Structure formats: C-alpha cells, structure tokens
C-alpha cells in the first residue's frame, strides 16, 4: 500500500519535472516546478520528516517560487523562440543519461553506512520532529546556522546593490 502510494507520487514528480524542462512557456515551467515541490513534500512526510515537508512548502513552493514567478511576470518573458543548438542538446541529454546509468550501477554495487543513529520512528513521535531538528541545529550545528545569517545578509546587500534604482 505504502509502496503504491510512493509510486504514484514519484510518477507525478517525474512527469512534472519533465514538464519543467520541456515546456516552452516559463510560467508553465514554474507551475510544474511547484507541483514537483509539493510531491517532494509528500515524500518527506512519508520519510517521517514533517518539519522538512512544512518548510519545503513554505520556503520553496511559497517564497522562492513566488519570487521566480514575480520576476517572470516583471520581465514579461515570451515563450522561447527555439531550442539550443543541436550540439548543446546532445551534450545535455548524454550527460543526463550518463548520470542516470551511473547512479543505477552505483545502487547495485554499494552499501549504506553500517552505523545507525538513535533517531527512529518511536523517538520522533515521542519527542517531536521539530524539537529534534531545533536541538540539533542549536547544539551540534550552531556554527553553520550562524554562517547562514551572514549568507542572507550578503544576499540582501547584493540584491540591493544590483537592482536599486539610484545609488
């Protein structure tokens, strides 16, 4: 039952991501991408990561995609005139297929780490996923968390410098 549900969601995700790549109109691409993000959020719930699912919807599908759709509207981009040169097309598809074959081969021939952590379903349902993430973020990964504040500051300054009307 769970596998069936996974397969349905996965199929929708793959179809939507193919539409991102093939659609000529950027707005349609953006909408398909949002659909893919929702499918991924569903999968995160299945993987017992409800907090990640929530921020996937809020941050990705919400904030980032709204920004992208806004810019597409602002620039009033028409549909693409044509494809890239056949040379680029060939390169792209061959690199993509190569990656895929490589990953397939890799899955057959490799093993996951044998060290198992302490976080399991029982713990997640008892303590709560958000609390676990929060604890980890403010203890073990405090430094990376602080670095993101610098990163966001740089992004704000950069965006202002590049697009402020009069400096």
């Amino acid at each position, binding site marked *: 039952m769970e596998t069936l549900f996974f397969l349905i969601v996965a199929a929708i995700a793959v179809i939507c991501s193919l539409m991102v790549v093939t659609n000529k109109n950027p707005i349609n691409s953006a909408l398909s991408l949002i659909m893919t993000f929702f499918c991924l959020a569903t999968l995160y719930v299945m993987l017992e990561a409800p907090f990640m699912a929530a921020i996937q919807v809020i941050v990705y599908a919400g904030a980032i995609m709204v920004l992208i759709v806004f810019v597409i509207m602002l620039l009033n981009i028409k549909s693409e005139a044509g494809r890239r040169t056949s040379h680029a097309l060939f390169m792209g598809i061959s690199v993509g297929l190569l990656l895929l074959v490589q990953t397939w081969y890799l899955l057959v021939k490799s093993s996951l*780490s044998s*060290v198992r952590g302490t976080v399991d379903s029982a713990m997640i349902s008892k303590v709560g996923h958000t609390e676990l993430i929060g604890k980890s973020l*403010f203890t073990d990964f405090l430094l*990376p968390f602080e670095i993101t504040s610098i990163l966001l500051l*740089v992004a704000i*300054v950069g965006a202002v410098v*590049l697009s402020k009307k009069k400096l």
Partner: protein
Amino acid sequence: MDTIAIPAINLAVIAPEVVLSVVAMALLLINVFVKSEQKGYLGYLSIAGILGTLLMLIPAWGSSVEGFSGTIIQDNFAIFFKVIFLISAAMSILITDKYLEREGCNQGEIYPLILFATVGMMLMASGTDLMTIFLGLEVLSVSLYVLAGFNRNNIKSNEAGLKYFLLGAFSTGFLLYGMALTYGATGTTKIAKIASYIAMNGVSSSNLMLVAGMILMSTGFAFKVAAAPFHMWTPDVYEGAPTPMTAFMSVGPKAAGFAAFARVLLVALPALKPEWSSLLWVLAVLTMTVGNITALYQQNIKRMLAYSSIAHAGYILVGFTAGNAVGTAGILFYMLSYAFMNIGAFAIIILVGKKGEENSNVSDYAGFGYRHPVLGIAFCIFLFSLAGIPPAAGFIGKFYLFSGAIQAGYIWLAVIGVLNSAASVYYYLRVMVFMYFKEPTEDFEWVKLTPAFVLCLLIAVIGVLVPGVLPGLFLELAQKAVLM
C-alpha cells in the same frame, strides 16, 4: 520542559572571521553617511579591518584548536591560507577605488562584499564539516556573483555576473550530490568522522557510493577552481568583471577552493588515494594544456591572464596529484606567490586601461616599457614570475610542485608540466616584446599613479622577489602548514 545543553563554544577559533564580519557590517552602516566622492575612505577602513584580522592570526600560528563540536578548526594549514586570502583582499581593495571612480560606479558596498567573500573563504579553509565548507563556499560565491556584475551599467559586467551565477549554481548541485552520497556511505558529514569510519570499516574503492561521492565533489570543486574541462566560465567572467574584482577572483577563491578540496581529499578520503590521484592526474594534464594552448591565441590581455590562471590551476593540481608533503608544501608556497604576481599584473592592467577599458589588447602595450620605465620593469617582474623564470617566486613554487610529483613517481606528469611551462613563456614574452620592441601606435594617456597603487605594486614586487631570492623561510612555513 528540559533545557538544551549548549556544548562548549570556542569563540577563539572563529575570532578572525567574527572580527572581519563585524568590520564589514560596520562599513555597511558607515557607507550610508559617506558622500560618494569619499567612498575611497571605506577602502582604507576595510584594510584596517584586514590588518587587525591578520594580527589576530599570527599568535595562533603553531596551535591547532577545534571548536563548535568539530565543525571548525584553526590549524597551521588554515592560517596559512587565511593569510593568503587577507593579503589578496587587501591588495585588491587598494586598486579598487580609482577604478570605480573612473568607471563611474563608485558604490561603497563593494568593500563589505569583498570582506564577506573573504570571510567565506576563511570558513572554507578551516571548515571540518561538509556543512561548514559548503556554507563558506556559498557565502563566497554569492558575494562573487554580485562583485562580477558590480558595474551594472556595463553590459559585459552584467553578462559576466549572470554567467558566473548560472554555472556556479549548476556546479553547486554536483558538489551537493557528492556530499549527499558521501554522507550516505559514511553516515556523517564531519571530515574526521568520515576518515575514521572508512578506516574502521575498511570500505574504500569497493563501496561505489563513496567513490561516486568523491567524483561528484571533485567535479564541484573543479568548477570552482576553474580546472579543465570545467573552465568554460572563466575567460568570460574574468574579462567581463571589473578588473580589480578579476584580480581578486583569480587568486583568493581559487586558493579557497584548493584549501577545501585538499582538506576533503587528504583528510577525509585518504583511503581513496589511488582513485583520486588518477582522476587529478587527468584533470591536471587537461587543465595545463588547455589553459596554455588557448592563451597563446588571445589578443585581449585580461582573457590571456584568464587562460593563464587556468594553466596555473593545472600546475597546482600537479602538486595535488602527488599528494605528498613536498607537493602540498608546493601548493601552499605557489598560492602565496601567485597572489602577489597575479594581483600585481592586474594592477598594471588597470593603470593602462581607460574608461570602458579600450586599452586591454596586447597591442595597446606597444612602447609601454619606454613611456613608463618603472612600471614596465614591475610588469616584467610579474610576467617573469608567472612564466616561472628565476629568480622570481613563481620558479621556486613550480620547482616544488613538480619535484613533489617526481617524488611520488609521476615522472610523466612532471615532464608534461615542464613542457607546458616552457610553452607558456611564449605568450608572456609576447607582451614584453610589445612593451619594448614595438613603436606606440597612438598617443598614450598618462598613467595616473596614486599612493594606493604604488603601495599595492610595491607589496607585489616585494612579494614576488623576496620568496624568489630567499625561499627558505617561506618554504619552512609552508612545510609546517602541510596537512600531514
């Protein structure tokens, strides 16, 4: 409700980064109150901040301190690289001010952005967790995208910024996928734990997930250090970006990429050495050859130096392939001297250029050596060093890189490196031929030297000649900073 036990935080480890970020944030605030003709003073303030950071680093030399539950370390290796980053940032800031005035985009935000980029590089050099390295890399890259497109009324600069952004984000995808697979294969993102897991469980080349992770991470890093065949963005971005930023980009970020790359390969994945050294062998040969051969055909001097910087990444990869103490010390020494010679050369290019940079073709340098004898000699010193001719520092650096390769048994790699180095002499000499043996074609605009430029050139000349003539001290420092 139970409280969270915050683990011991060792603020001393990140003190240099904190100081530099605080200076950058203060500059952002001060910038609001400074009139546009006086933005240059912000540059001097940022240099003061950099000097302060340098002073904090020096007493830390010789110790190795970890902090923040193993996500960061301050050891000799990190300190050596941090000094390179700080020097290159300071030298680039010295030549930024007049350039921005000339191009009419004198905005004070450029100085905080350079400082933030430097903070990103410092985090990359000292990060011991894949997350720290990744976030440091992103702080660096996001600042660089903006710096490349900083001259936003110039269409070439726009194009450079956008190209760099698209390809940089693309390469980030590969780097991340590699990190994800490494995490899956070892169950951790901490570099020390990855190494101990591999050592304990004896997995190495048999586990393809780990190998694939290593290859994908190498691809990501190769993009960042501009190694062939992932170098395509380099010439366009270097040509289009504002010249002081090109100088900055060609030194610091490259060194930062190599620092993080070295830590990942040498500390986390020494078990995969047979795999990664053969991968790097191919990368090194390709990078050197493609860089040098394409540089032979360039008319634009910024593009020529872009290809030459690709070739230099190749030489450094030679030392990397060797993976022994001599090769690694060679990398450190070479990066240090490369910072001086490359920024020096770019400083001269800025002096010769006009608004809109019409004077960036090699033929524009006709007669330059007679019009400005002192500048001509300085430029020759930088070019000699880039070509690897003694007594400049570039020669000693190359000597160590190649002898590291020979010691590790890669005779052919060293031979190819020496041949490449010989070929590169041609295009550096061509500039000198124009400078001294060709009549000037047009009236030369008088080069306006400011004290800041003089200081930058002076530092660069000293930095090229002193390690070249007296390499002992610097090599000793580099050997103490080696990761093994």
